């Protein structure tokens, strides 16, 4: 029991505190149309397999809050909707806006803006001036989320 707790706690700390791979110097410009960003952020299409791996990785932070069809991920969150079926009702453009800056869609949301580097307070030294995810990582995750259909 105590051991299980310890394990969970360690995972949270690792999950929340580790830097992601994002090292973009400048954000790729994008255009919001309605509730979407219709154009991909990169020239190369996203890779759904890489996207799945990113969503399941604790360092990306998604499953700290969300759950989904990820049987191998033992500890998932319930602060946010289950991601099962996401591709049924959201388009790639809508998902891209969600990930880039969910607060554009719901100003009160607790979901972080994954592709934003301004307007934030007291960002840790190791993370200052960079988005949580790179443009390529956003595209990989979008490519994966649209496959979540049932």
């Amino acid at each position, binding site marked *: *029991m*105590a051991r299980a*707790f*310890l394990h*969970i*706690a*360690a*995972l*949270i*700390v690792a*999950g*929340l*505190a580790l830097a992601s791979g994002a090292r973009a110097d400048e954000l790729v410009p994008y255009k919001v149309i309605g509730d979407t960003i219709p154009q991909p952020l990169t020239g190369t299409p996203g890779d759904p397999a890489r996207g799945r791996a990113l969503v399941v990785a*604790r360092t990306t*932070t998604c*499953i*700290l*809050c969300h759950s989904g069809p990820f049987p191998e991920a*033992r*500890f*998932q*969150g*319930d*602060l946010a909707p289950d991601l099962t079926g996401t591709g*049924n*009702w*959201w388009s790639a453009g809508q998902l891209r806006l969600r990930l880039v800056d969910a*607060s554009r*869609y*719901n*100003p*009160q949301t*607790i979901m*972080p*803006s994954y592709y934003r580097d301004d307007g*934030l*307070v*007291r*960002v*840790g*030294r*190791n*993370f200052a001036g960079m988005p*949580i995810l790179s443009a390529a990582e956003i595209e990989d995750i979008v490519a994966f989320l649209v496959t979540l259909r049932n």
Partner: protein
Amino acid sequence: MIFWHAIAAATLLAAAPALLAGEIPPDARRSGYSFMGPDTRAMQDDDTSNPGMLFVLDGEALWAKKTGSSDKACADCHGDARSSMKGVAARYPAFDKVLARPVTLDQRINLCRANHQQAPALPYESGDLLALSAFVAHQSRGVAITAGDDPELKPFVAQGRDLFMQREGQLNLACTNCHDDNFDKRLAGAPITQGQPTGYPLYRLEWQTLGSIERRLRSCMTGVRAQAYDYGAPELVALELYLMSRARGLPMETPAVRP
């Protein structure tokens, strides 16, 4: 399906202000203890299995030990801690008239060392400081928290409250987002509590040692990828003070055990 989601989103928007106001009413305040499993509770409840009690015993020895160039022990001024220190921790952080600001129990211990014992300050999170503050706070076990009642503390409680409500870090989350609006939910499978400060210093299984509330607050800040305040920083003291005033009426548990 798309419609359903649009409706859900609209409801979310409409409901948001009420949620944001979401301070926990006094009768709904719950210690982190009530979120724990039976094994961890049992560990805290039984002094012979509570690892924090070893620090309390160390603290008891330090209380009676003469130190510094004045060669005085805490006990030489304060006598038997069982009576003189009862209820003290439940009132900390407390306003210090000379410094004109609130000081934490750790800071008070170091002020006594400097002013009355002529001894060097004990570093934050050092074994001796944790042991002394655990011993002192243990004398308040079961005493209801009243910290923050002093009118001179008002602006500092307000500062702490503002910090609690402030979104911060790369993940852009405020303390209130987790500890007012989402307690009882799970972050990656682990229960989120109300973040009540009732048990400090406490033994965390994750740390495998005793730690202060400042250590805990710094790890929540690091968790949202914010730059944590330094130990003893006025902002951390204000946050601790706000947390204590928010916990008004809850009994002290030092030394608590947490997962």
